[in-house]
């Protein structure tokens, strides 16, 4: 099993902490999901930060702070430094948003910020596209994990470009790859794992469902099923039928 900067994850689900109907439901969703990682953010302190911090600590999972909403290298780097101090971790989910409607990463600034942060001792989890060249550049910048999007954040569309994600898996066989964003259903998460991805990061699909605790469990089971399926070496799809029941020995009855 691949590790994330030396940390193995027994459960390859990274679950967001935003948008739950209540803290109690968030807590239940995490426990049902078995997620190994919780993503968090930093926002202006208006009184709720310390309670939330206590709750996240009680989840006993790895904390992955993000730079959500950052549009420039400077603000992403500053946010990363603030996150390192507050959350006491070198991990940073590096988001550099380039497009308002699709929340597509600005990959040019992403590579630059990844280089600056890696040189400063951060362990960068870059939210990127499925572009192979950008992936190469991120690795050259010091990243040891890549997190391509499945589809735009919060869209729930699943894996928009399976071909590109397959190519990415084939291109970087030794690198831990995480599908980050776009997952809407457990089948999407299973799909990602069937392609050989090492983890799935999702938030909205669980938090905004009608029953987050139940959906969290569904995601856990789907990810487990997808991983097992990948390890079991699935058959190739084919265009024509092939009988599964033996032809030889069939009684002659017509």
């Amino acid at each position: 099993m691949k590790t994330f900067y030396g940390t193995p994850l027994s459960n390859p689900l990274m679950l967001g902490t935003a948008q739950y109907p209540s803290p109690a439901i968030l807590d239940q969703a995490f426990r049902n999901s078995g997620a190994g990682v919780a993503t968090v953010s930093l926002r202006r302190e208006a009184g709720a930060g310390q309670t939330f911090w206590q709750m996240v600590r009680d989840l006993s999972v790895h904390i992955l702070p993000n730079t959500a909403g950052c549009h420039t290298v400077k603000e992403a780097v500053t946010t990363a430094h603030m996150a390192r101090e507050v959350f006491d971790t070198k991990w940073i989910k590096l988001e550099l948003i380039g497009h308002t409607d699709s929340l597509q990463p600005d990959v040019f600034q992403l590579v630059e910020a990844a280089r600056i942060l890696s040189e400063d001792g951060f362990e960068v989890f870059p939210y990127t596209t499925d572009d192979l060249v950008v992936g190469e550049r991120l690795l050259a910048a010091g990243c040891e994990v890549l997190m391509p999007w499945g589809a735009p954040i919060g869209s729930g569309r699943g894996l928009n470009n399976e071909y590109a994600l397959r190519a990415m898996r084939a291109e970087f066989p030794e690198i831990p790859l995480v599908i980050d964003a776009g997952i809407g259903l457990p089948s999407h998460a299973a799909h990602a794992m069937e392609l050989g991805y090492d983890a799935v990061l999702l938030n909205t699909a669980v938090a905004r469902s009608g029953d987050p605790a139940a959906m969290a469990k569904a995601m856990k089971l789907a990810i487990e099923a997808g991983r097992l399926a990948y390890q079991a070496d699935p058959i190739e799809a084919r265009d024509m039928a092939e009988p599964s029941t033996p032809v030889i020995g069939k009684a002659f009855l017509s």
Partner: protein
Amino acid sequence: MKIVLNGEMREVQAGTLADLLQECGFSGRVATAVNEGFVPSSLRKARKIRDGDRIEVVAPMQGG
């Protein structure tokens, strides 16, 4: 002295960033930036506050 704290104009007495946090009631896990630059907690006592400074105080929050 007038400063901008988390986007809002404030009149404060504090001379340093550490004093400012205390004056404005911040405690626990927060991170700080002055004029868009990160100020580590170890430097807050030494960091002087000047008229017009833009100060950000952030804390853990839900995120995806």
